[in-house]
């Protein structure tokens, strides 16, 4: 049986219920955040590019920035019957893939994204189950509704399960 995959492109937010998979392909400095309410059987994923909305500009793409993507994702889940108190979170990405070269440490969007996501989640009080951020590797993340597994795939190490968001 072919599992239906919902691709979450850059600056995108997707929510699914009942069956299927959510996928963020090739995360570099971006972060894929997955939030699940196992009881309501809904899951959502955001593909965040930047830490915060630019001052003095219209934010026409809430999925692009951590400070707008996370509240938007949560309200989309709530519309499908999810409750904050039951939500579980996993996220991955925020790498610096340009690891060779003397100025490589200056590219720090990945790091700033990770910090922004971590801080926002902490102040929201949501339950973060696991995260896999930083380093120099690109990651593809997948969440399966059926199993509840949140998986991370890399070029060098292949795929492994980071955590399960369904169990108690």
């Amino acid at each position: 049986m072919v599992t239906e995959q919902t691709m979450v492109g850059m600056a995108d937010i997707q929510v699914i219920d009942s069956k299927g998979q959510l996928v963020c392909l090739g995360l570099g400095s971006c972060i894929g955040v997955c939030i699940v309410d196992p009881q309501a059987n809904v899951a959502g994923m955001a593909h965040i590019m930047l830490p915060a909305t630019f001052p003095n500009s219209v934010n026409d793409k809430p999925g692009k920035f951590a400070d707008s993507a996370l509240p938007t994702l949560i309200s989309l889940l709530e519309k499908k019957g999810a409750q904050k108190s039951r939500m579980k979170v996993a996220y991955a990405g925020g790498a610096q893939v340009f690891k060779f070269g003397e100025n490589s440490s200056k590219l720090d969007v990945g790091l700033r994204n990770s910090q922004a996501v971590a801080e926002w989640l902490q102040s929201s009080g949501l339950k973060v189950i696991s995260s896999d951020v930083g380093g120099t590797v690109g990651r593809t993340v997948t969440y399966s509704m059926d199993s509840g597994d949140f998986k991370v795939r890399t070029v060098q190490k292949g795929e492994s399960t980071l955590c399960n968001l369904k169990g108690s």
Partner: protein
Amino acid sequence: MPSTPRNFGEVQLSAIYEMANIGLGNAMTALSEVTGQPFNMTIPRVEFLPSDQVPLLLGGDEVPTVAVYMPIAGQVEGHIAFLFPWESAKRLWNMLLGQAPESVADIGELEASAMLEIGNMLNSSFLNALADMTQMQMHATPPLVAAEMSYAILSTLATEAALSQSTALAIETRLECSTDEIQGVFVCLPTIESIEKMLSALGLAEAA
């Protein structure tokens, strides 16, 4: 036709195409000299894309790709990068070093610095041609190299471009070496302001 922000007209678009053509021609000459192999290039697409669509250029794939990236500073600002699919990158390393890493994990100092050199050379010859044409000052900053999933590389570039809050110009270039089948893609992400400045310098600023 793709939509063009701020309505760049046909004349402006073909000027941008010409600038890219000359800049990349220069870069190919440099590459041929250093490898001793003839390189050709074609420019299938010059497109204005919202930066979050840049990854689509390579089909949004997970194939390992080697990228040499350089931020541009000066009167013209932006980002340029050459991307080589893994097999092409290996052939390039073979030409330069007589050996190539087996996998992404095997890239050592030697391979990394060879690729940084290639990037330096390609990007500076591209920029020199542009600077000569427009008489504007632009300089490359030290190159960076990544060997990763193509989407992870392109999305990182798109994010860097998005940081400057501009819609990007993506110039897709295919370069080929007749003897060894090396393919590459060039992506150029200048800020819209920079493009306007360059067009003004060429006397092609848009009528108000």
